[in-house]
């Protein structure tokens, strides 16, 4: 039996290739993602390796607020001289010195803009005696308060050299320094993990980076000869208590490497997610391919059964075939994945300056997962059609020759149940307590459910769709062919459906969000001009308050409202917080409306919040709420009022003075300008631009430009998602190619007859193309419907996050439909070519 199976398998190369290709693609995506992730991780580890080998032990206060977002920076609370002395007194410590090293020193480049980040943090530090780990490459250390040294990576990125003047933004507005030295790190590294470092003299670093003269960000302890690192580490931890982190140099390097991994990690996870989608879509394709192949082999299999093979042997034969296909395709997919991974890692690393890509490596996990996914998925996909096939009485098959597909009630029921379950889970996940995994499982179940139900509607829908293309006999024949086997059409279309549905859902959410933002800004924003950071760094941009004060003096500017945003800790969770320099003006500029209590003024020790925040915190006017800011001790406030949701202001609004003391930065991160009636907008804008030129992190935008900025962010996000889902689409296209190729094989004799009675090659191509386009369009339409519903549900569930309106992206939906037609045409090219080239005579006499 085994020999027979293998022979039969090898004798049909086309079959082998078609069924294997889908597995190959899916495995390629999975292993590629894993290789990328692994390579980048190792690259980063290599970057940080030994970065702090000159530190025996490092002591620092734990940050008060652990930042949630990756572009947020946790402020390390400064410690004082007394702590340094305390460390020095612990036994085993030979010496202790205070360090100043904190994130947030941004260098202004020659173009007047902040030098772009290179994937790592931007440190501002006090110059310390350099160990063998860092070396001055040129110049000398900063000796006066007006001098700085910078690392070689930053010097290269910014095009700076010794002797240049350079502006630096810190917790204070722009200050200008002279670059007196450029330094590098051990092993000839220009930068550690893409970091940028500006080294000041100690008093300057303390003032600018910590906001406190005499403060330190950490203590560096040197061990007495013969003391054990572990012993001293634990006695230090005991002496200082739980508010302190005590790390070895190695641990510190690991911690920094973990922090800088954040965004790459996220990308890796994202890639794996999309790899999952492609595996899921691949399953449909493999199931379909095996179904068709088995249908075509029915006679052969039935003959075997008539000759005495048992049902088990028959199923076994199919499983062995699928195992071989899975094994071979997984191996090829893994090889392709390693190639893709190498290219991908290179591309990602090149977006991070100064990151040397580690040698290509294949993690053991990728190998295991590739083969497990490839083989299991293939065998699972083959099992269903095999079991179904084995249930048919052998003689019926031999006699009838055809493969009659009856109604599949069980399947319909299963589909309905799965869809119901999926929708239920989706609903619970979206509208109940947090449940991202519930949403994912729900969506998957719903997809399977829909595809099981699809055969019910595929025949009528395909007939209707086909009518659009049924020009002449070839069109009519193609249309009939696509309606011929509803199950086959349904599964093929389902693969298409999933990709389109996901893209549509995301487009719908994005369109709804965009529409809400546009609407809210148009309705609420009373400012004529806004100074705002770019989308990614809107919260961390800074504006020089002195410059803002001068803007208020500009003729034509009626009022200025400035805000600063941050993240605070409240209980166990994090809470976005905002503060306004002048609340009365802010309220007017934002067009805020009272929902409860009073929002007219903001008294000390009280806070205001928007409705969604109040709802999710279960807070009412009069309640007490405790907030721990980045700096200082926790404070308790009374909720004085609640205002209606607005895109422009979410979260908890706290008094300005508290923000100055507790927020990460004392400087405003955004400002709103109202102009006097009849003032010339472009003139005012030019004046404001000029005044804010030393705050290059923000740009002055008109209301329209603000809307554009938000829309642009959505468009970018959408483009990334569309690109990644493109692979799932590719697999779906392959599915159509598969189905067509196998169907044509099945209908060889019929095609021979058609050619014999006068169907030309061109007409043959048109017939097959019509079939392909109809299937593809059907899948896309299904996807549009499912995706729109899903997208609207998700958007509705995100009402609290400011999506107040639902909108469908009609333009994109139309584009997806047109895309489906193109996909259908492309998918038909190879099969149509094959069909048109058939030898008429051979085809007619084809078994």
């Amino acid at each position: 039996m085994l020999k027979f199976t293998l022979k039969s398998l090898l004798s049909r190369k086309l079959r082998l290739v078609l069924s294997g290709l889908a597995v190959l693609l899916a495995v390629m995506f999975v292993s590629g993602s894993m290789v990328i992730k692994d390579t980048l991780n190792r690259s980063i580890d290599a970057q940080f390796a030994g970065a702090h080998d000159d530190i025996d032990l490092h002591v620092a206060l734990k940050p008060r607020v652990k930042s949630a977002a990756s572009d947020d920076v946790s402020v390390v609370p400064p410690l004082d001289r007394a702590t340094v002395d305390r460390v020095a007194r612990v036994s085993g410590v030979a010496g202790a010195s205070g360090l100043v090293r904190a994130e947030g020193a941004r260098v202004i480049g020659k173009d007047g803009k902040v030098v772009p980040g290179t994937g790592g943090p931007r440190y501002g530090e006090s110059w310390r005696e350099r160990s063998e780990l860092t070396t001055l490459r040129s110049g000398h250390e900063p000796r006066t308060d007006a001098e700085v040294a910078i690392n070689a990576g930053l010097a290269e990125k910014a095009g700076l050299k010794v002797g240049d003047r350079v502006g630096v933004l810190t917790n204070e507005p722009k200050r200008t320094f002279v670059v007196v030295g450029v330094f590098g790190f051990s092993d000839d590294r220009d930068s550690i993990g893409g970091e940028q470092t500006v080294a000041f003299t100690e008093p300057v670093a303390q003032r600018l980076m910590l906001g406190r003269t005499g403060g330190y960000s950490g203590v560096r302890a040197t061990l007495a000869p013969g003391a054990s690192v572990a012993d001293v580490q634990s006695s230090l931890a005991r002496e200082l208590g739980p508010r302190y982190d005590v790390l070895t140099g190695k641990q510190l390097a690991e911690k920094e490497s973990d922090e800088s991994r954040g965004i790459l990690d996220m990308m890796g996870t994202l890639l794996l997610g999309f790899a999952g989608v492609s595996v899921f879509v691949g399953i449909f394709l493999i199931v379909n391919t095996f179904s068709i192949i088995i249908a075509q082999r029915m006679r052969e299999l039935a003959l075997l059964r008539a000759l005495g093979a048992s049902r088990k042997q028959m199923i076994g034969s199919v499983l062995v075939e699928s195992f071989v296909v899975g094994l071979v395709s997984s191996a090829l997919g893994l090889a392709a994945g390693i190639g893709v991974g190498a290219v991908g890692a290179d591309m990602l690393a090149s977006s991070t300056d100064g990151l040397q890509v580690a040698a290509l490596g294949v993690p053991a996990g990728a190998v295991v997962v590739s083969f497990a996914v490839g083989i299991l998925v293939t065998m699972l996909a083959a099992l269903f059609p095999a079991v179904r096939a084995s249930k048919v009485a052998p003689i019926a098959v031999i006699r009838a020759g055809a493969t009659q597909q009856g109604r599949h009630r069980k399947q319909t029921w299963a589909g309905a149940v799965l869809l119901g379950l999926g929708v239920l889970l989706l609903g619970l996940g979206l509208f109940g307590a947090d449940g991202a995994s519930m949403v994912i499982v729900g969506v998957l179940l719903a997809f399977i459910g829909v595809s099981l139900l699809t055969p019910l509607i595929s025949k009528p829908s395909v007939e209707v769709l086909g009518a659009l293309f049924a020009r002449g006999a070839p069109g009519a024949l193609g249309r009939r062919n696509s309606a011929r086997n509803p199950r086959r059409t349904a599964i093929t279309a389902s693969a298409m459906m999933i990709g389109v549905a996901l893209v549509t859902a995301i487009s719908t959410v994005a369109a709804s969000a965009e529409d809400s933002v546009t609407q809210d800004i148009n309705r609420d924003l009373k400012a004529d001009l806004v100074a705002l950071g770019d989308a990614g760094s809107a919260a961390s941009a800074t504006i020089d308050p002195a410059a803002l004060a001068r803007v208020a003096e500009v003729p034509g500017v009626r009022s200025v409202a400035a805000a600063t945003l941050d993240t605070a800790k409240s209980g166990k969770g994090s809470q976005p917080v905002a503060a306004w320099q002048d609340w009365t003006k802010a309220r007017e500029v934002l067009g805020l409306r009272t929902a409860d209590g009073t929002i007219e003024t903001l008294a000390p020790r009280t806070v205001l919040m928007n409705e969604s925040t109040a709802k999710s915190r279960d807070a009412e006017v009069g309640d007490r709420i405790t907030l721990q800011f980045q700096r200082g001790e926790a404070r308790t406030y009374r909720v004085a009022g609640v205002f209606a949701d607005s895109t422009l202001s979410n979260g908890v609004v706290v008094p300005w003075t508290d923000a100055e003391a507790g927020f990460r930065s004392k400087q405003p991160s955004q400002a709103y300008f109202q102009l006097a009636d009849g003032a010339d907008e472009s003139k005012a804008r030019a004046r404001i631009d000029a005044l804010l030129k030393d705050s290059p992190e923000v740009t002055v935008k008109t209301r329209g430009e603000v809307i554009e900025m938000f829309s642009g962010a959505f468009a970018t996000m959408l483009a990334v998602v569309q690109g990644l889902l493109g692979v799932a689409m590719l697999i779906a296209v392959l599915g159509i190619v598969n189905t067509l190729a196998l169907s044509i094989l099945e209908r060889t004799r019929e095609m021979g007859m058609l050619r014999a009675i006068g169907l030309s090659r061109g007409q043959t191509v048109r017939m097959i193309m019509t079939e392909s386009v109809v299937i593809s369009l059907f899948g896309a339409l299904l996807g549009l419907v499912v995706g729109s519903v899903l997208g609207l549900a998700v958007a509705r569930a995100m009402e609290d996050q400011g999506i107040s309106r639902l909108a469908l992206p009609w333009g994109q939906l139309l584009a997806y439909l047109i895309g489906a037609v193109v996909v259908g045409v492309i998918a038909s090219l190879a099969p149509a070519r094959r069909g048109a080239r058939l030898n008429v005579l051979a085809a007619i006499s084809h078994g």
Partner: protein
Amino acid sequence: MTATVPVATERRVLARALGVTKMYGKGEAQVAALRGVNVDFAAGEFTAIMGPSGSGKSTLMHTLAGLDTVTDGEVFIGDTRVSDMSDKELTVLRRTRIGFIFQQFNLLPTLTAEENILLPLSIAGRKPSKDWFDRVIDTVGLAQRLDHRPDQLSGGQQQRVACARALVSQPEIIFADEPTGNLDSVSGTEVLEFLKNSVRTLGQTIVMVTHDPRAASYADRVIFLADGRIVGDLNEPTADAVIDTMRSLDDRARVA
């Protein structure tokens, strides 16, 4: 022995093979299916081609119908030289001037009987003439079953649909490849009667390949093939005469 050239003298020649040779394979493995066959088929005549399997009878029909190329010699349909035609020209030829009936019926399962019958016309983008269509349907006796699909028809009915399909485009000549091969004797007789009738009453020209002497006896003329050569030509045959000829061919083969 060289076969005599059978020529139908008094009537117009519709299909002609001139020195047609057909070789399959290459070198040592080369096999001749036809060895210099000369034959004419007259308009309005029902001709059967007979011969044992491997005699080249199907190959002869395929080359005449433009479904297969010739190694040497020429094939004409009417005055048109078929050998050396491009695929495009052949398609048009088959579409407009030739009809086919297959052993396996070869109907499209997705189409009704009527749609199957009209298929060649719709492929060619032509409209059926109502009178002719009715007359064909009448002759085939399918008026009641036009909206049935092939799987709802018996084998004989399916083959009659296939016959109607061949007739409806009014081709100059119809080639039938073992049209009764898959039918029981009653249905087979029906189909043969019908083919004969369409020659008598509609003036159709038909060339039929068969190995069944009884089927051949319905034809006006029977040509016998053996080893790729024409070895006999019988006019107004009876079943017995056909059987006798076949037997004599067998004997000759045995002696050889």
